[in-house]
């Protein structure tokens, strides 16, 4: 296990730290969690600052280790999270960078890095969740365009997005075409005619989700990334990124939160409860190990050429549950305060409930680990 950094990597870290120490004190406070236009402006503004300072390309053109250092240091310094840029920077961007043509990279990547354009994700459908490959949004060719009809759900930031990375079915499932074939990856301009966005309210009260209805929307064939019917493979690149490195900042934040919980417990007297103290100690061991696993996954990605591997599923399974346990512990630290939505940890505790569901439920993750990593026979 290599935990050492090169001189170049350490100097990148030092330069980034200096820059963050310079700019963060002058940054205005972020908008309310539900103010989506405000959040878009704030998040893309921060992205622009990073770009102007020369950090724009760290998200996919830099070596994975530099990306890891970048995410670690920005989180440690308390810099704004990627926010509304999440899909562009961590999903669609990496996919286009890996699978797009030179023209597509030139068209879509710079605006993401400059904070000019926001992306959302059109993968899940009302009848295609964990079983994503059974998606039914149809697309058929009409001249230079695909015509797309269907509906997408759980589309974060759809209200303020300029583009949507969209999975559509171009060839129907048949005896010859299994469901994983016949899917195509398209860049959908969100201002096209025929798109209806309906916000969905989450159990946390927020409205970052939306349902997106597509009624004969025309998408140029030039907006297709990868070959027709090859979209499943193309999208797996994205999901590997999500399971590999997309949570680096969050793990750093969780370790910081543990320190804050200890501080709060010492202040309010709950630190005297040995059971609570020991629980926090054990969580500290868990999150330290999850951080090491992240580093391991990134160094594996470097060794194997860029795309994180199966270690991502192991990480996703443990992290999603550990995050929920962490906020349950936070509730015990707060006591009755845990029922007060004004306390920040209360809302986070609610949001954490999505982690064992989003990007493949824990149950599906276990199937994937059992069948693809351990080689057990196909489940039933």
């Amino acid at each position, binding site marked *: 296990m290599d935990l050492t950094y090169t001189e170049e990597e350490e100097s990148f870290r030092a330069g980034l730290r200096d820059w963050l120490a310079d700019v963060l004190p002058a940054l205005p406070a972020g908008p309310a969690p539900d103010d989506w236009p405000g959040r878009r402006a704030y998040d893309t503004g921060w992205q622009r600052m990073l770009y102007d300072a020369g950090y724009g390309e760290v998200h996919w053109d830099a070596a994975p280790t530099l990306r890891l250092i970048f995410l670690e240091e920005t989180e440690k310094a308390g810099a704004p999270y990627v926010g509304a840029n999440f899909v562009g920077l961590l999903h669609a961007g990496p996919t286009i960078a890996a699978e797009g043509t030179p023209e597509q990279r030139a068209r879509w990547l710079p605006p993401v890095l400059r904070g000019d354009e926001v992306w959302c994700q059109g993968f899940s459908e009302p009848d295609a969740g964990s079983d994503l490959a059974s998606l039914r949004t149809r697309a058929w060719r009409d001249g230079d365009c695909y015509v797309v009809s269907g509906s997408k759900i759980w589309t974060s930031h759809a209200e303020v997005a300029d583009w949507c990375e969209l999975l559509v079915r171009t060839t129907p499932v048949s005896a010859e075409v299994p469901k994983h074939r016949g899917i195509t990856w398209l860049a959908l301009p969100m201002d096209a005619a025929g798109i209806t966005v309906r916000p969905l309210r989450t159990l946390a009260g927020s409205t970052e989700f939306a349902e997106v209805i597509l009624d004969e929307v025309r998408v140029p064939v030039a907006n297709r990334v990868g070959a027709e019917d090859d979209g499943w493979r193309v999208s797996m690149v994205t999901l590997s990124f999500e399971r590999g490195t997309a949570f680096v900042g969050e793990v750093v934040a969780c370790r910081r939160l543990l*320190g804050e919980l200890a501080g709060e417990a010492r202040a309010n007297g709950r630190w005297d409860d040995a059971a609570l*103290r020991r629980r926090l100690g*054990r969580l500290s*061991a868990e999150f330290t190990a999850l951080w090491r696993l992240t580093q391991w996954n990134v160094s594996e990605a470097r060794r194997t050429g860029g795309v994180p591997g199966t270690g991502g599923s*192991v990480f996703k399974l443990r992290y999603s549950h550990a995050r929920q346990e962490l906020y349950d512990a936070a509730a015990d630290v707060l006591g009755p305060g845990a029922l007060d939505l004004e306390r920040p940890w209360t809302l986070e505790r609610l949001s954490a409930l999505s982690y064992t569901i989003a990007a493949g439920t824990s*149950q599906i993750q276990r199937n994937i680990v059992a069948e693809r990593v351990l080689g*057990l026979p*196909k489940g*039933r």
Partner: protein
Amino acid sequence: MEGRFGRDALRAAVEAPALDRELWRALGDAGFFALCVPEDAGGVGLGLPEAVLAFEEAGRVLLPGPAVATFLAAGDVEGAAAGETVVTAVEGELVPWLEEADVVRGDTDGAVPVRSVDPLTPLHRVPDAPNTSHDPHDPHDPYTPHDPHAPRTSAHVASLLRAAEQLGSATRTCESAVEHARTREQFGGPVGRFQAVQHLCADMLVRAELARVAVYAAAVTGDRLAAAGARLLADDAAVRNARDCLQVHGGMGFTWESDVHLHLKRAWVRAGLGAGARQAEEDLAAAL
């Protein structure tokens, strides 16, 4: 390691438990005990990262004997490095292999034999053991609870090496469960096609892999808190993986003939040696 102590040797040892001096010398010849002794002192001159790999293999094959204490004594107890002298130590309230060892580190006054749950680890109990958060056989006793920057003690290294053994065991029981699930047929096919069985196996892998990064990283950094964390995750992985492995094996898992119970019992014993999980959790909490 499998060549020197394979399954046949393991089962023979279970039927006639005794310290195998020949095996011990063979390990000494192979450099196992002298891995971290400097080369100019006649050792192999490697570090903790290599040592945890060796102990992981020892845990995997359920190597019997006080390997951790002998390893820590190499370089300062005559004959320990060569496997000629068998060294054990008081580990918390327990002393493994007390009667068989040539040298015992720590105070064994009033030690009484225990009918050990693990057929391959004879145990004595020291009823009035000093505060177990201290390392009783370290003359400098630099252990200061709640001080993350305290120097490394042999107790801290012992704990990490035992965690490496737990990791090896957790990995082996995961593999064993998967092998069984692939080959054991019920209802017209392998039981590993049932999701209920698959999910047990997947969770075993997650526990083992998380313990692995914790143990390896603690060995690389040498950090005592990292070692405490590694110990917690590795104890958990070894004990719970052995339990799940037993469950996946069904009735066979409950037999003496199966190796699963040997992994579970040894995992319990390793988890019970030294300062204990409570101390590790308290140390980690105190550093928050």
